[in-house]
């Protein structure tokens, strides 16, 4: 939009930098790096955000690893069971953590793309651009990761307050020191790798970054298959006893793993479709501008809307299982259990809730990052709407609604699927152990509030944008 963009002055385009050999590309890139890194002061926020995002990713990663490895120091009879549950929890948190990582990488890429596109127009070669991108992504991520280690140092004692077997985790939360540089390096490498992947669009077409494609829509056949998987899961669930008689514990665990895996895939296929169908309906019915806008924003890319919050899908699913199962075991047979087993029951319940809570926290972070990036991306729209006299709250409310509506679908939908699978048990649990169910609901509610808060946070960027409109128009 700026008339002075380098791309619009063909007369001043320098000759392409010749760099046929990779070494040449590297040398040119290093030469250009300071230029590339120099930015107007307005970009400070855009620079700080990806760093903060990578810091959050690293801190959460270390907290999860720290919590999981805490159990590996134990060496009694039940240690193996705790370790197994710890591993399951880590596996469940991989998806939400990956979501945060992806948002961080995307945020970093957004800011980069525009300058890369203009570099490309100026004649920089693919090699130069690749090297520059990887350098910047790695540098941003490394700085963020180091900050994240500090964040871990702050968070670990807090999480260490959690009690297992009646004792706080405390110092067990600390990972071995040499994990820290590994985590920092790992985050840096992943960021660099994702930058290379994300780069292809820019390299293929200099203008590629500006042309937004319309997202493909989910086909109804996938919905049918997904529903089939869900029904199949229900059947298998009913036959668990038979399976147990036939093949023992291994068969049961195998069947459960298959059900969970199937559910995850089914949810991922169903989710975007449901999100789209619901948003269509909302777009038709909306009576206020924020509602209409929110629905239209979701319809713009239902898959992205789903993916942003899909990190809570599996944990919500497992959360219902855990809460119900534990509610029932707690009432039935505490009498005959030895104290260790009673602790185990208690601790699984704690573990399930903590895992659900962390997954919501991760989704909240990823939403916060995505919304911030989205707000900066749409800065020009904010300025335009403000000029038209559209109240400032309209856009913020719209984007918050877009997130929350998808979150309801994800968390509500997966919890509902789980409840359907073990339907009779849920009913029983509500009657015999309302407290356990209420606790679980409270965790979900807190999770929703956290995501909502994160979504609302980006509205704070708007006054800054409106105060300096000339930067974006």
């Amino acid at each position, binding site marked *: *939009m700026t008339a002075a963009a380098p791309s619009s002055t063909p007369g001043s385009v320098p000759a392409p930098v010749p760099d046929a050999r990779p070494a040449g590309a590297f040398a040119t890139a290093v030469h250009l790096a300071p230029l590339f890194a120099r930015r107007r002061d307005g970009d400070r926020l855009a620079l700080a955000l990806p760093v903060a995002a990578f810091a959050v990713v690293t801190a959460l990663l270390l907290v999860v690893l720290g919590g999981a490895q805490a159990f590996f120091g134990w060496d009694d009879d039940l240690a193996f069971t705790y370790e197994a549950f710890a591993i399951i929890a880590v596996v469940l948190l991989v998806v939400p953590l990956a979501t945060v990582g992806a948002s961080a990488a995307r945020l970093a890429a957004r800011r980069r793309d525009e300058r890369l596109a203009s570099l490309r127009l100026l004649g920089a070669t693919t090699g130069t651009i690749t090297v520059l991108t990887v350098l910047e992504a790695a540098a941003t991520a490394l700085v963020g990761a180091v900050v994240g280690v500090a964040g871990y140092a702050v968070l670990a004692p807090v999480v260490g307050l959690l009690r297992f077997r009646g004792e706080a985790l405390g110092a067990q939360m600390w990972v071995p020191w040499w994990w820290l540089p590994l985590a920092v390096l790992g985050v840096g490498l992943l960021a660099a790798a994702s930058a290379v992947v994300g780069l292809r669009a820019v390299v293929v077409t200099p203008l590629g970054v500006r042309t937004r494609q319309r997202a493909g829509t989910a086909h109804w056949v996938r919905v049918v298959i997904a529903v089939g998987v869900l029904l199949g899961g229900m059947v298998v669930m009913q036959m668990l006893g038979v399976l147990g008689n036939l093949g023992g514990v291994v068969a049961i665990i195998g069947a459960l793993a298959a059900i969970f895996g199937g559910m995850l895939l089914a949810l991922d296929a169903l989710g975007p479709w449901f999100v789209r169908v619901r948003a269509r309906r909302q777009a038709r019915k*909306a*009576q*206020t*501008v924020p509602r*209409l*806008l929110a629905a*239209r*924003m979701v*319809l*713009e890319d239902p898959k992205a809307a789903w993916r942003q919050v899909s990190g809570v899908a599996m944990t919500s699913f497992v959360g219902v299982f855990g809460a119900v199962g534990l509610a029932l075991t707690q009432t039935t047979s505490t009498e005959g259990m030895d104290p260790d087993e009673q602790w185990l029951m208690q601790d699984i319940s704690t573990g399930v809730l903590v895992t659900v809570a962390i997954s919501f926290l991760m989704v909240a972070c990823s939403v916060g990052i995505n919304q911030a990036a989205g707000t900066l991306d749409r800065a*020009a*729209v904010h300025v*335009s*709407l*403000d*000029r*038209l*006299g*559209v*109240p*400032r709250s*309209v856009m913020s409310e719209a984007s918050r609604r877009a997130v929350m509506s998808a979150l309801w679908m994800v968390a509500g939908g997966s919890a509902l699927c789980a409840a359907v699978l073990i339907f009779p048990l849920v009913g029983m649990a509500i009657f015999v152990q309302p407290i356990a169910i209420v606790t679980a609901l409270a965790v979900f509610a807190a999770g929703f509030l956290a995501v909502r808060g994160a979504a609302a946070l980006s509205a704070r960027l708007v006054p800054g944008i409106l105060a300096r409109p000339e930067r974006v*128009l």
Partner: protein
Amino acid sequence: MPTRDPLVVRRGRCLAAGRVGGMTPLLSARGLTMQYPGGTTPALDAVDLDIAAGESVAVMGASGSGKTTLLHCLAGILRPTAGSVTLGSANGPVRIESLDDAGRSRLRREELGFVFQQGLLLDELTALENVAVARMLAGVPRAQAETEAAQWLHHLGLAGLEQRRLGELSGGQAQRVAIARAQVTGARLIFADEPTGALDSATSVEVLDLLLAATQAGRTLVVVTHDADVARRCARTVVLRDGRVVSDTAAPSQAATAAEVSR
């Protein structure tokens, strides 16, 4: 150096006032001055301007002469560092510059219409929704807002395109949607900043026709333009240089526009 004689300015104003015929102007600026925080010289320097209801005013001048700044001050988008802007409204005159952010925002929403070069519409919404939104913000129920919006789109030659998303419209079509949006609220005063800047000449003529047609219906138009053809079709041309009004004429004098614009 061409004249900066205040007489020239005053003469222009008298001319304008003469046409107004003693009526109170719809919009009236006095001593309008805008000094941007970083700027060395003011972007607007004590501008006096009266605009009568139903007038079409072209604002011309070299790049950087303060046209956009003037438009934004008149429309309450920017708060001038000094001077006043008075809008005659049904409930008596309103001093725009003394309203707070929310008040000016409300004024823009309810009383003014805008057509800029680009970017005042939402990509996600359909053409119809983009126009209807302006009414919904005023509390009109969606169904009625869409009926009114559809009438405007039809009136502006966009029948059949109501359900297109904005990205699926041409530049000229999008600009018509913006014109519909500017008028659907019943705004009496429309501000346009280079509304034809991104269009080819044939489309420019069409878009300008639609804007001028709005003045026929009693609305008032203030249009910033680089295009002498656009200015020629307006009832009055104000030329700015270095933040001052250097000419203000009923018929666009070739000499003034050519001399001032190509500077």
